[in-house]
Protein backbone atom coordinates (compact mmCIF):
# COMPACT_ATOMS: atom_id res chain seq x y z
CA UNK A 1 0.00 0.00 0.00
CA UNK A 2 2.80 2.35 0.66
CA UNK A 3 5.05 1.15 -2.10
CA UNK A 4 5.84 4.47 -3.60
CA UNK A 5 6.20 6.51 -0.43
CA UNK A 6 9.49 6.03 1.19
CA UNK A 7 9.98 6.26 4.91
CA UNK A 8 12.31 9.23 4.54
CA UNK A 9 9.50 11.39 3.15
CA UNK A 10 7.47 10.95 6.30
CA UNK A 11 10.47 11.61 8.46
CA UNK A 12 11.61 14.74 6.68
CA UNK A 13 8.15 16.18 6.70
CA UNK A 14 7.76 15.46 10.37
CA UNK A 15 11.13 17.14 10.98
CA UNK A 16 10.02 20.28 9.17
CA UNK A 17 6.85 20.38 11.24
CA UNK A 18 8.87 19.87 14.42
CA UNK A 19 11.22 22.72 13.79
CA UNK A 20 8.43 24.97 12.68
CA UNK A 21 6.93 24.34 16.08
CA UNK A 22 10.27 25.11 17.70
CA UNK A 23 10.52 28.38 15.83
CA UNK A 24 7.02 29.29 16.87
CA UNK A 25 7.71 28.47 20.50
CA UNK A 26 10.77 30.67 20.56
CA UNK A 27 9.26 33.55 18.63
CA UNK A 28 5.65 33.98 19.63
CA UNK A 29 4.79 36.32 22.43
CA UNK A 30 1.31 35.14 23.26
CA UNK A 31 1.11 32.21 25.63
CA UNK A 32 -1.70 30.57 23.68
CA UNK A 33 0.19 30.66 20.41
CA UNK A 34 3.14 29.15 22.25
CA UNK A 35 0.85 26.34 23.31
CA UNK A 36 -0.21 25.85 19.69
CA UNK A 37 3.44 25.53 18.68
CA UNK A 38 3.91 22.87 21.34
CA UNK A 39 0.98 20.95 19.87
CA UNK A 40 2.69 21.07 16.47
CA UNK A 41 5.80 19.54 18.01
CA UNK A 42 3.85 16.75 19.64
CA UNK A 43 2.06 15.95 16.44
CA UNK A 44 5.24 15.69 14.45
CA UNK A 45 6.53 13.21 16.98
CA UNK A 46 3.39 11.15 16.60
CA UNK A 47 3.80 11.00 12.83
CA UNK A 48 7.36 9.81 13.34
CA UNK A 49 6.39 7.01 15.63
CA UNK A 50 3.60 5.73 13.43
CA UNK A 51 5.76 5.89 10.31
CA UNK A 52 8.45 3.85 12.04
CA UNK A 53 5.88 1.38 13.23
CA UNK A 54 4.44 0.89 9.78
CA UNK A 55 7.71 0.70 7.87
CA UNK A 56 10.19 -0.89 10.24
CA UNK A 57 8.14 -2.97 12.61
CA UNK A 58 4.93 -3.91 10.83
CA UNK A 59 4.27 -6.91 13.07
CA UNK A 60 4.39 -5.01 16.34
CA UNK A 61 2.24 -2.36 17.86
CA UNK A 62 4.59 -0.35 20.08
CA UNK A 63 4.71 2.79 18.00
CA UNK A 64 0.95 2.72 17.73
CA UNK A 65 0.38 2.64 21.43
CA UNK A 66 3.12 5.13 22.10
CA UNK A 67 1.36 7.59 19.86
CA UNK A 68 -1.90 6.85 21.62
CA UNK A 69 -0.41 7.69 24.94
CA UNK A 70 1.29 10.76 23.56
CA UNK A 71 -2.07 12.06 22.44
CA UNK A 72 -3.50 11.35 25.89
CA UNK A 73 -0.68 13.18 27.58
CA UNK A 74 -0.94 16.07 25.16
CA UNK A 75 -4.58 16.45 25.98
CA UNK A 76 -3.91 16.50 29.69
CA UNK A 77 -1.08 18.93 29.28
CA UNK A 78 -3.16 21.27 27.13
CA UNK A 79 -5.86 21.28 29.76
CA UNK A 80 -3.50 22.17 32.55
CA UNK A 81 -1.74 24.76 30.40
CA UNK A 82 -5.01 26.49 29.63
CA UNK A 83 -5.85 26.53 33.32
CA UNK A 84 -2.52 28.18 34.05
CA UNK A 85 -2.96 30.69 31.24
CA UNK A 86 -6.34 31.68 32.57
CA UNK A 87 -4.89 32.13 36.04
CA UNK A 88 -2.10 34.25 34.68
CA UNK A 89 -4.59 36.35 32.79
CA UNK A 90 -6.58 36.88 35.95
CA UNK A 91 -3.50 38.06 37.81
CA UNK A 92 -1.65 40.09 35.23
CA UNK A 93 -4.37 40.96 32.67
CA UNK A 94 -1.84 40.08 30.01
CA UNK A 95 -0.75 36.84 28.50
CA UNK A 96 2.38 38.22 26.98
CA UNK A 97 5.15 35.83 27.92
CA UNK A 98 7.66 38.64 28.33
CA UNK A 99 5.56 40.22 31.06
CA UNK A 100 5.43 37.05 33.11
CA UNK A 101 9.01 37.18 34.37
CA UNK A 102 8.82 37.39 38.16
CA UNK A 103 10.83 34.24 38.73
CA UNK A 104 14.18 35.79 38.18
CA UNK A 105 17.15 36.96 40.24
Amino acid at each position, binding site marked *: *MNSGIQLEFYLVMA*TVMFFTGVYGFLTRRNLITMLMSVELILNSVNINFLAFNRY*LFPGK*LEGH*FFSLFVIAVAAAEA*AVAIAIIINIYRRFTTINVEDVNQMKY
Partner: protein
Amino acid sequence: MEANEIMFAIFAIVIVVFSVLTVTSRRILRAATSLLIVLIATAGLYFLLNYQFMAAVQLTLYAGGIVVLIIFSILLTSQISHKFERIEAKKAIFSALAAVAGAVVVITTILDHSFSAGTAAAAEIDMHLIGRSLLETGPDGYVLPFEVISILLVAAMIGAIVIAKKGSPHKDEPAK
Protein backbone atom coordinates in the same frame (compact mmCIF):
# COMPACT_ATOMS: atom_id res chain seq x y z
CA MET B 1 2.33 8.33 -9.75
CA GLU B 2 -0.01 6.40 -7.68
CA ALA B 3 -2.99 7.67 -5.80
CA ASN B 4 -1.47 7.43 -2.36
CA GLU B 5 1.59 9.28 -3.52
CA ILE B 6 -0.57 12.13 -4.66
CA MET B 7 -2.49 12.01 -1.41
CA PHE B 8 0.70 12.05 0.53
CA ALA B 9 1.97 15.03 -1.40
CA ILE B 10 -1.21 16.97 -0.78
CA PHE B 11 -1.24 16.17 2.91
CA ALA B 12 2.46 17.01 3.29
CA ILE B 13 2.14 20.36 1.57
CA VAL B 14 -0.95 21.24 3.56
CA ILE B 15 0.78 20.36 6.81
CA VAL B 16 3.90 22.32 6.07
CA VAL B 17 2.16 25.41 4.75
CA PHE B 18 -0.40 25.64 7.50
CA SER B 19 2.07 24.96 10.31
CA VAL B 20 4.12 27.87 9.04
CA LEU B 21 0.96 29.93 9.00
CA THR B 22 0.22 28.89 12.57
CA VAL B 23 3.46 30.26 13.85
CA THR B 24 3.53 33.41 11.82
CA SER B 25 -0.04 34.58 11.68
CA ARG B 26 -0.75 37.89 13.30
CA ARG B 27 -4.30 37.21 14.22
CA ILE B 28 -4.79 34.60 16.85
CA LEU B 29 -7.97 33.14 15.47
CA ARG B 30 -6.32 32.57 12.14
CA ALA B 31 -3.51 30.77 13.91
CA ALA B 32 -6.01 28.55 15.69
CA THR B 33 -7.73 27.73 12.44
CA SER B 34 -4.48 26.88 10.75
CA LEU B 35 -3.69 24.57 13.63
CA LEU B 36 -7.01 22.85 13.12
CA ILE B 37 -6.27 22.27 9.48
CA VAL B 38 -2.82 20.89 10.31
CA LEU B 39 -4.35 18.44 12.73
CA ILE B 40 -6.93 17.28 10.21
CA ALA B 41 -4.28 16.75 7.59
CA THR B 42 -2.29 14.72 10.08
CA ALA B 43 -5.31 12.53 10.60
CA GLY B 44 -5.38 12.07 6.88
CA LEU B 45 -1.77 10.94 7.00
CA TYR B 46 -2.69 8.40 9.62
CA PHE B 47 -5.38 7.02 7.32
CA LEU B 48 -2.74 6.70 4.65
CA LEU B 49 -0.59 4.72 7.04
CA ASN B 50 -3.51 2.40 7.62
CA TYR B 51 -3.92 3.30 11.29
CA GLN B 52 -7.59 4.07 11.30
CA PHE B 53 -7.97 4.01 15.05
CA MET B 54 -5.20 6.52 15.48
CA ALA B 55 -6.72 8.73 12.88
CA ALA B 56 -10.05 8.60 14.66
CA VAL B 57 -8.45 9.37 17.99
CA GLN B 58 -6.53 12.24 16.42
CA LEU B 59 -9.66 13.75 15.00
CA THR B 60 -11.64 13.32 18.16
CA LEU B 61 -9.12 14.42 20.74
CA TYR B 62 -6.94 16.86 18.96
CA ALA B 63 -9.10 18.50 16.38
CA GLY B 64 -12.23 18.19 18.36
CA GLY B 65 -10.97 18.66 21.90
CA ILE B 66 -7.79 20.58 22.11
CA VAL B 67 -8.48 23.10 19.43
CA VAL B 68 -11.85 23.85 20.98
CA LEU B 69 -10.11 24.25 24.33
CA ILE B 70 -7.67 26.68 22.78
CA ILE B 71 -10.44 28.72 21.25
CA PHE B 72 -12.26 28.86 24.57
CA SER B 73 -9.15 30.14 26.24
CA ILE B 74 -8.76 32.77 23.55
CA LEU B 75 -12.24 33.92 24.33
CA LEU B 76 -11.69 33.80 28.07
CA THR B 77 -8.60 35.93 27.88
CA SER B 78 -10.17 38.53 25.63
CA GLN B 79 -7.58 38.06 22.99
CA ILE B 80 -9.96 37.52 20.15
CA SER B 81 -9.69 40.91 18.62
CA HIS B 82 -6.05 41.36 19.45
CA LYS B 83 -3.70 41.94 16.58
CA PHE B 84 -0.10 41.02 17.27
CA GLU B 85 2.70 43.43 16.68
CA ARG B 86 5.58 42.59 14.45
CA ILE B 87 8.14 40.38 16.01
CA GLU B 88 11.43 42.09 16.60
CA ALA B 89 13.96 41.05 14.03
CA LYS B 90 16.68 39.96 16.40
CA LYS B 91 14.49 37.42 18.12
CA ALA B 92 13.15 36.08 14.85
CA ILE B 93 16.54 35.67 13.32
CA PHE B 94 18.03 33.86 16.27
CA SER B 95 15.09 31.52 16.57
CA ALA B 96 15.06 30.88 12.83
CA LEU B 97 18.74 30.18 13.00
CA ALA B 98 18.29 27.65 15.74
CA ALA B 99 15.38 26.00 14.03
CA VAL B 100 17.07 25.80 10.64
CA ALA B 101 20.27 24.49 12.14
CA GLY B 102 18.37 21.82 13.99
CA ALA B 103 16.43 20.87 10.92
CA VAL B 104 19.55 20.59 8.83
CA VAL B 105 21.24 18.36 11.39
CA VAL B 106 18.28 16.03 11.71
CA ILE B 107 17.53 15.81 8.00
CA THR B 108 21.09 15.03 7.08
CA THR B 109 21.13 12.33 9.71
CA ILE B 110 17.95 10.85 8.41
CA LEU B 111 19.08 10.86 4.81
CA ASP B 112 22.46 9.40 5.69
CA HIS B 113 20.95 6.51 7.52
CA SER B 114 19.74 3.60 5.49
CA PHE B 115 16.59 2.26 6.95
CA SER B 116 16.05 -1.41 6.36
CA ALA B 117 12.39 -2.13 5.93
CA GLY B 118 10.84 -4.61 8.28
CA THR B 119 9.99 -7.99 6.81
CA ALA B 120 7.34 -9.23 9.15
CA ALA B 121 3.80 -9.47 7.99
CA ALA B 122 1.63 -6.52 8.76
CA ALA B 123 -0.55 -7.07 11.75
CA GLU B 124 -4.22 -6.62 11.22
CA ILE B 125 -5.16 -3.80 13.52
CA ASP B 126 -8.71 -4.11 14.65
CA MET B 127 -10.41 -2.90 17.75
CA HIS B 128 -10.33 -6.25 19.40
CA LEU B 129 -6.60 -6.36 19.16
CA ILE B 130 -6.20 -2.87 20.52
CA GLY B 131 -8.57 -3.45 23.37
CA ARG B 132 -6.98 -6.72 24.33
CA SER B 133 -3.45 -5.27 24.14
CA LEU B 134 -4.39 -2.42 26.38
CA LEU B 135 -5.43 -4.80 29.09
CA GLU B 136 -2.90 -7.58 28.65
CA THR B 137 -0.08 -8.09 31.09
CA GLY B 138 2.12 -10.26 28.96
CA PRO B 139 4.98 -9.15 26.69
CA ASP B 140 2.66 -7.44 24.28
CA GLY B 141 0.47 -5.98 26.96
CA TYR B 142 0.18 -2.31 27.68
CA VAL B 143 -1.80 -2.37 30.86
CA LEU B 144 0.91 -0.54 32.85
CA PRO B 145 1.05 2.53 30.62
CA PHE B 146 -2.73 2.39 30.48
CA GLU B 147 -3.03 2.61 34.23
CA VAL B 148 -0.38 5.30 34.45
CA ILE B 149 -2.15 7.37 31.86
CA SER B 150 -5.39 7.01 33.80
CA ILE B 151 -3.76 8.38 36.90
CA LEU B 152 -2.16 11.16 34.89
CA LEU B 153 -5.50 12.17 33.46
CA VAL B 154 -7.09 12.23 36.90
CA ALA B 155 -4.22 14.35 38.22
CA ALA B 156 -4.45 16.68 35.27
CA MET B 157 -8.17 17.10 35.75
CA ILE B 158 -7.85 17.86 39.42
CA GLY B 159 -4.88 20.11 38.84
CA ALA B 160 -6.59 22.09 36.15
CA ILE B 161 -9.65 22.59 38.29
CA VAL B 162 -7.61 23.69 41.29
CA ILE B 163 -5.48 26.07 39.28
CA ALA B 164 -8.28 27.65 37.37
CA LYS B 165 -10.84 28.11 40.08
CA LYS B 166 -11.42 31.55 41.44
CA GLY B 167 -9.51 31.70 44.69
CA SER B 168 -10.73 33.26 47.98
CA PRO B 169 -10.47 37.07 48.00
CA HIS B 170 -7.34 37.27 50.21
CA LYS B 171 -5.40 34.89 48.01
CA ASP B 172 -5.94 36.86 44.84
CA GLU B 173 -3.66 39.86 44.84
CA PRO B 174 -4.64 42.85 42.78
CA ALA B 175 -3.35 42.50 39.26
CA LYS B 176 -0.26 44.56 38.40
